[in-house]
C-alpha cells in the first residue's frame, strides 16, 4: 500500500541506520512547519521530532508491530501531541488539547514516550554523578562486554581482582545515584 513506508519499516527492523536517517530527513520539514507555525522554534521542532522518530524506531522493533497508517501520519500525530504538551507546560497554549487522534491509539503511545524519556534522563543524571573512571569501567563491562582482565589492563590495575573490586564499588555508587534519582521523580 505504502511502498516507501513498507521499505523503510523493513529496513528499520534490520536496524538499518541508513533507513533511519532517510526517514528522519524525509519528514522533518513537515514538523518544522507544524511547530514554527505554532509558537515554536526550529530547535524545538528538532527536539520534538527526534523524540517522535525514536519512538517510531522502538515501536517498529516490537515483533507484533504492523503498519496501520502512513509513517508520516504517525509522526505528525506524535509530534503534535508532544508539542501541545510542551506548550501547556510553558503555559503559552490556551486552546483545546482534546482533539481525537484516538484512531491511532496514540494515548498509550504518549505515556510510553514520556516514560522512556524520563528513564533516559534519570540514567543520564546518574551517570553524570558517577564520573570517571567509574563510568567507563561499568560501560566496558556491561555494554561492551569486555572481560575484567582487559578492563584491568586498560585502566592500569595490577590484577583483575583489583579491577573487579573497583567495578563493584562503582556499581554500588551508580545504583545509589540511580535509585535516588528514581525516587525523586
Amino acid at each position, binding site marked *: 500500500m505504502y511502498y516507501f513506508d513498507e521499505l523503510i519499516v523493513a529496513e528499520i527492523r534490520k536496524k538499518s541506520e541508513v533507513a*533511519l536517517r532517510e526517514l528522519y530527513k524525509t519528514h522533518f520539514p513537515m514538523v518544522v512547519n507544524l511547530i514554527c507555525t505554532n509558537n515554536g522554534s526550529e530547535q524545538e521542532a528538532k527536539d520534538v521530532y527526534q523524540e517522535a522518530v525514536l519512538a517510531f524506531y522502538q515501536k517498529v522493533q516490537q515483533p507484533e508491530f504492523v503498519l496501520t497508517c502512513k509513517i508520516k501520519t504517525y509522526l505528525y500525530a506524535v509530534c503534535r501531541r508532544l508539542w501541545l504538551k510542551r506548550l501547556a507546560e510553558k503555559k503559552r497554549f490556551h486552546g483545546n488539547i482534546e482533539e481525537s487522534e484516538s484512531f491511532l491509539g496514540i494515548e498509550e503511545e504518549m505515556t510510553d514516550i514520556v516514560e522512556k524519556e524520563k528513564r533516559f534522563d534519570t540514567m543520564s543524571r546518574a551517570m553524570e554523578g558517577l564520573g570517571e573512571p567509574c563510568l567507563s569501567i561499568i560501560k566496558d563491562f556491561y555494554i561492551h562486554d569486555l572481560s575484567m582482565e582487559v578492563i584491568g589492563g586498560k585502566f592500569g590495575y595490577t590484577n583483575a581482582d583489583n579491577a573487579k573490586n573497583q567495578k563493584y564499588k562503582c556499581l554500588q555508587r551508580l545504583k545509589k545515584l540511580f535509585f535516588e534519582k528514581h525516587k525523586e521523580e
Partner: protein
Amino acid sequence: MNLSPEQIDLLDRYIKGKLSKDEAAAMDRRLASDDEFRWKAEEHFTIIRELKFHEQRKHLMQVLQAAHAEMESPVVTPAPEKTVVMRPAKNYWAISGVAAVVAIISIISTFYITRSIKDEQTAIYRELRRKVDQIKKSQNIMMADMAEDKKEKKKSRGNYVGTGFLISANGYVTTSYHVVKEYDSVYIENEKYGSLKAVVVHSDPANDVSILKIENARLLNLSLPYSIAKTETNLAEEVYTLGYPREDVVFGAGSISALTGYKENPNAYQVSVPVNPGNSGGPLFNSKGDIVGIISGIETQTAGVAFATKSTVLLDVIKNEALDSLHSPLVLSKQNTLRNSTRVEQVKRWKDYVFMVKVFKN
C-alpha cells in the same frame, strides 16, 4: 543488605549466560525462594537494563543528530534551480561597478538607519500599581508643616494600591500578581462594601494573575451581574475599565488595539484605554459588560498603549489550579444581566464589584 561482590559476580555471569548448568539451576532456585535476595537481584538487573537502554537510545540520538546535520546544509542553501548561465557582456563592467557601489552604500546606510531606530525603541513595560508612599510622604510633610504629631502617621510603609474585581458570588476577587507581590495583609475597599479583609489564595507570576478571597464573604450575599468571556475578543472591539488610580473610582473607555501584549505576548491584549498607576488588576469589559481582560501595564514612551491579560488566561489559571474544587469552590458566574443596559447603567452596577486593593507591607 547489599549484595556482596561475589553475589554480583554470580549475577553478572548469570545474565551473560556464563554460569555452568548447575550454578544456573542453583541461582534459579535461590531467586525463586529467597525474597530478599530476589529483590536485590532485580535491582541489579534493572540497573543493567537501564544502562543498556540508555546506551542504545544515546546511539540512536547520535544517528538522528547526524541525519540532521546531513540535512541542514542542503536545506539552507537554495538548490541551484536550472540556473541559466548569463555571462555579462564585457562592456557592462563599469555599470555593474557603479551598481555595486550604490548597493554597498545603501546597505551601509540602511544598517545605520535601522540601528538608530532600534536605539529609539527602548520602550519599557511598566506595571501599574500605585505606591502610596509618595502620597504619604507629601502628606507627612504637610502634617509637619501644620505642626502635628508625626509619630502617628508612620504606621505602615511601602503600601501599594491596585484594583481588583469580583469573579464569583462567594467572594473570590482577581487582581494582577504584581499588585500583591509583596504583602503582609491585603484589604479591598469600595464605596458599597467598605473595607474588607482578603487573603491571597493563588498567585501566578508568569501570567500576572492573583486570586484573592474575601474573608467572611458569605455575609455579603453577593451576586454577579456579569460573566467572564470564554473566548478571545476581536480586534477593535470597544472595551471599558474601572479602576482606582486615585481614591475615587475612575472609568476609562477605548478599544482592543492588538491581540498580543508587550513584546508580542500572546497572553495579553494591547488596549487604547487611558490607565495610570493604580489601574493594575482592574477589569476590562466589553459592551455587553462581560470581562475580557485584566489591566496589567503600559508601555512607557508611547502614549495610549496599555496592556491587559486575557480573560482566557484567567480562566485557565482557575482551571489549572483546580480552584473550583476548593473547600469553598470558586464558582464562576455564568449569567450576564447587564447585556441590554445602557453603558451608564452597566457602570453603575459594575462599580459595586470593583475594589481598590490595598496591600500592606511593613
